[in-house]
């Protein structure tokens, strides 16, 4: 028995250091072990397969074109466990899914000031996983995955208990969640493209004071969902083609005191769902060709919708309540039937964006069968003149005659 154990142990030991032929400098791990703090380690082209590489000192790891760190599937590839580490120029692949841990190609653990840029990730479970990271820059990486079901996928960029991150100009395709932030504050998410993910293009919870700018979220199966956050700012993003029974271009739940400015919502089944969300500013957004433009739940309080454009939506605004505490000011509605006699660019009669039909559909869903029937048109007009069921206060008193520029 002892003999067997010893032989087994010897075999294990013999198989572990897998050295690539032709690399005189040895494995990446060996080179890191040999490097002084703040050195730059250059890695030439080639396929590197070795156990998890742990970087435990500040340094710059620079891959030449063709430098490829390939896993055998059962372990993470790179762990950043010290401050001021930079990793760029590599291709990462070969991290299998597992239900036991969030196995990632690159894990950042309790580190400051890291920079992960210009890398390519293919066929990995989680891409970049940050836990207690501070001041990290994740820039211009390409992450691709081809998972087939939501439960078997990992997230492309995942941050947990981190602050002051910059996640910019990454291209993400086909993960479970494209960008996932949890307990991650004071960060910037800019210029990313997150498409074809099986759940959300962007998903965050308990993430305060973050700015999301110029991103494109498109064709994600459930769209974008963000929850429990204070003081967020979302500007000039595109939310496109979140299409399905429970897909939302942007779902806001328990979001407070933030701003959603100049975004484009295009071709979603529901463009914007606002639930338990208060004191938000929605300004200058465009809602075009969606099923529902805005679904405003009764639990949403003190929100302002101004200078938005509504074009070609089946329902511009729907709500499940008659008493609402949100304001609509100077939006452009392509369904507006009013006139502008004094030519000041604002309609002279108020616009009621919530139609009777949308209220009926909200209450009794099968009524949708009557969509676009003459009866419904007549009822909508009658209700517009004399509101009985639609929210009385939900009016745009001075709608724009033309979309804001």
């Amino acid at each position, binding site marked *: 028995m002892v003999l067997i154990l010893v032989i087994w142990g010897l075999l294990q030991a013999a198989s572990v250091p897998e050295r690539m032929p032709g690399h005189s400098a040895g494995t990446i791990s060996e080179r890191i072990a040999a490097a002084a703090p703040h050195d730059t380690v250059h890695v030439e082209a080639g396929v590197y397969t070795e156990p998890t590489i742990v970087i435990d000192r500040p340094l710059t790891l620079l891959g030449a074109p063709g430098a490829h760190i390939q896993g055998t599937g059962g372990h993470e590839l790179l762990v950043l466990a010290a401050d001021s580490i930079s990793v760029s120029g590599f291709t990462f692949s070969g991290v299998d899914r597992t239900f036991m841990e969030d196995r990632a190609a690159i894990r950042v653990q309790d580190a400051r000031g890291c920079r992960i840029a210009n890398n390519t990730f293919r066929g990995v479970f989680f891409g970049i996983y940050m836990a207690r990271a501070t001041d990290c820059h994740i820039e211009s990486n390409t992450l691709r995955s081809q998972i087939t079901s939501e439960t078997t996928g990992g997230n492309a960029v995942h941050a947990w208990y981190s602050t002051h991150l910059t996640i910019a100009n990454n291209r993400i395709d086909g993960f479970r969640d494209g960008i996932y932030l949890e307990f991650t504050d004071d960060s910037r998410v800019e210029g990313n493209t997150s498409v074809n993910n099986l759940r959300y293009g962007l998903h965050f919870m308990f993430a305060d004071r973050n700015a999301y700018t110029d991103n494109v979220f498109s064709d994600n199966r459930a769209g974008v969902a963000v929850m429990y956050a204070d003081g967020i700012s979302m500007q000039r993003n595109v939310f496109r083609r979140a*299409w*399905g*029974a429970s897909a939302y271009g942007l779902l806001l739940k328990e979001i407070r005191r933030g701003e959603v400015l100049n975004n484009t919502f295009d071709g979603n*089944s*529901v463009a914007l769902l606002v639930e338990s969300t208060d004191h938000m500013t929605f300004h200058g957004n465009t809602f075009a060709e*969606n*099923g*529902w433009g805005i679904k405003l739940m009764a639990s949403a309080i003190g929100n302002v919708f101004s200078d938005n454009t509504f074009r*070609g939506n*089946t*329902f511009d605004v729907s709500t499940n309540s008659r008493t609402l505490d949100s304001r609509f000011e100077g939006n452009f509605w392509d369904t507006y039937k009013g006139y502008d006699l004094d030519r000041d660019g604002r309609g002279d009669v108020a616009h009621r964006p919530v139609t009777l039909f949308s209220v*009926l*559909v909200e*209450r*009794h*869903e*099968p*009524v*949708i*069968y*009557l*969509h*676009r*029937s*003459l*009866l*419904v*048109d*007549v009822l909508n007009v009658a209700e517009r003149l004399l509101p009985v069921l639609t929210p009385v206060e939900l009016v745009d008193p001075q709608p724009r005659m033309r979309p804001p520029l």
Partner: protein
Amino acid sequence: MMTTLLTFHIKDALRSRWLFAHFALYLIITEGLLLASGTGDKTLLSLINVVLLLVPLVGLVFGTIHQYNSREFTELLLTQPVRRSVLFGSLLAGVALPLMATFALGVFLPFVWHGGVTQDQGLRLALLLGLGSVLTITSVGAAFMVSTGQTDRVRGIGTALGLWLVYAVLFDGAVLLAVTTLGHWPIEKALLGIMLANPVDLSRLILLQVFDAAAMMGYTGALFTRFFTSASGFIMAGTALLVWMLLPLWSARRRFLSQDF
């Protein structure tokens, strides 16, 4: 004999200014929509309402009036050795064909000089024109049914208008009432069955399926989408439309064959 009578009836219909007005109406509506919205997609969406309302109305009213107007001529022809079924067929085709043609041309032509349609738009336009033609036949059939059963002209036209009101508005009102009062029961499937009983609603649902898929995202919509995309649902909807074309015709023809003029 059939062709002679048919050409005569079509020529007769073409001489009527109503038919030209019919053509001009669709032409102006489509042209106006294209000019106002600037996009073919939006125009097609707006045309749904127009087609679903106007086509049955025109079919019913024009069909009834035409029957009454040509009554003397019909009686004259019946003294000749002409089979009644042939006469009925030519009368029917003489109204339905020009109506379908003017409707289709009036809608289609503005798209031509506004730069044609994309493949996707083309399919939707074809569906719209197809269903419009089905509704034309149904409503002209119903008009003949009314006018052969009712010799009094005013009553006949009144009945035709009443039929239109029932199918275009009142039926939907009853459905709305039923849904809002029985909304707590699972009535979706029953509703589908009920919708088969109204050709206007059935056409509208088929068009929505293609034109306004986003509205069909909820549970009801999903059920409905599954119905129309399944083979059995497709066959059922097609059969229902076919029945709706043939039933009024069959009834009108039976009356016409046995009527004492």
